[in-house]
């Protein structure tokens, strides 16, 4: 089956910044994304878990978007403006998709 090269960008960021990030991504031409809750983890700010939390200050989410390689730089610039001063991780991996016109 014919597949097409794409980039999968995973941005793990504070939950409070989610809407700011996704708005910036849309403005940068991203046509779709998926938001996943993060159960917990550990990093430079110490360990944390979602269990029992009622506020949004200590939660994290992961925003995943799959895009054409040509859109990557614009996406990263938009994402960096939002995540620069915040806790988070941005990773990029190569992937393949079946329907290139959707990205």
């Amino acid at each position: 089956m014919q597949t097409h090269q794409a980039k999968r960008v995973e941005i793990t960021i504070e939950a409070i910044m989610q809407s700011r990030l996704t708005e910036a991504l849309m403005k940068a031409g991203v046509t779709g994304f998926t938001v996943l809750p993060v159960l917990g983890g550990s990093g430079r700010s110490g360990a944390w878990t979602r269990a029992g939390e009622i506020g949004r200050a200590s939660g994290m989410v992961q925003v995943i978007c799959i895009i054409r390689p040509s859109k990557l730089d614009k996406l990263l610039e938009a994402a960096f403006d939002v995540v620069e001063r915040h806790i988070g991780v941005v990773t990029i991996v190569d992937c393949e998709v079946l329907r290139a016109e959707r990205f």
Partner: protein
Amino acid sequence: MEQILSLAANNLLSPIILSFALGLAASLARSDLSVPEAAAKALSIYLLFAIGFKGGVSVSAHGIDAKLGLTLLAGIILSAALPLIAFALLKVMTSLNRLDAAAVAAHYGSISIVTFVAATSVLESSGIASEGYMVAVAAAMEAPAILSALWLISRGGGDGQRMDSDLWREILLNGSIVLLVGSFFIGWATGEEGLEEISSFIVAPFKGVLCLFLLDMGLVAGRGLRERSDVLRPGVLAFGVLMPVIGSLCGLGAGLLLGLSSGGVALMMVLSASASYIAVPAAMRVALPEANPSIYLTLSLGVTFPFNLTLGIPLYVALATAMTGA
């Protein structure tokens, strides 16, 4: 003094405090006991709705007096002024940098709605009446402290200008405020009849739900203390206990000046003494992301919240009743 000790002893042995202690102990002992995030949020929605609704019913039953506007104004002024006191105290007592000190100070100007809910429960158990509109005062005291903290930062030449329209909306329309104020107006509009219709849901189970919620708060507080206790240097720790006492005295002065009932004065003290751990931490993560969240979250939830819950509330209630002669 005897009254304070008696109230404190009764409070410490109440199911509410013992539930919090259970959560705290379980967390510190590394038990796997946990309350799922969704369940904790559901419990908090229930408590906010119930406390707002009952406040509205009380206003509906007793009517509005001229003190409402003045009490709201006093709450806003206290919320804006307390961070300035907290900031000055932090500069004297701790070695926190300006950014961390301002972020911590914001928490102490704003309020902890759970402490407020626990205090209303203690007042109800003691048969002490309070003004129903104190719920609205609690909502009004959430945000001004954030502005004071940002002003403290900008005054020191720091970057405190990240107040965009989204942040304003998140602060002023955060879920807790909308639910509290909304249910207050529903209670006000529907009055005693409305309360009768749903009392089996929002009155009878209230304390049981509060116990479960405080169990969760104990678990979260214990986890914070266990994993981030290194930020609690002696000066910071002492601030976490001293500031609520100072705040409560400011609340006492305001309550007495306004001529509130003994319950109203006690609640004003509780609001001024408590530190936010829902609205302000979220605002600080957006506006002052470089400030260390471990410090303000651990201090607010791990030190000041347990202090207010166990010793503070009975102390404030006893002082309020003594000063109002009730």
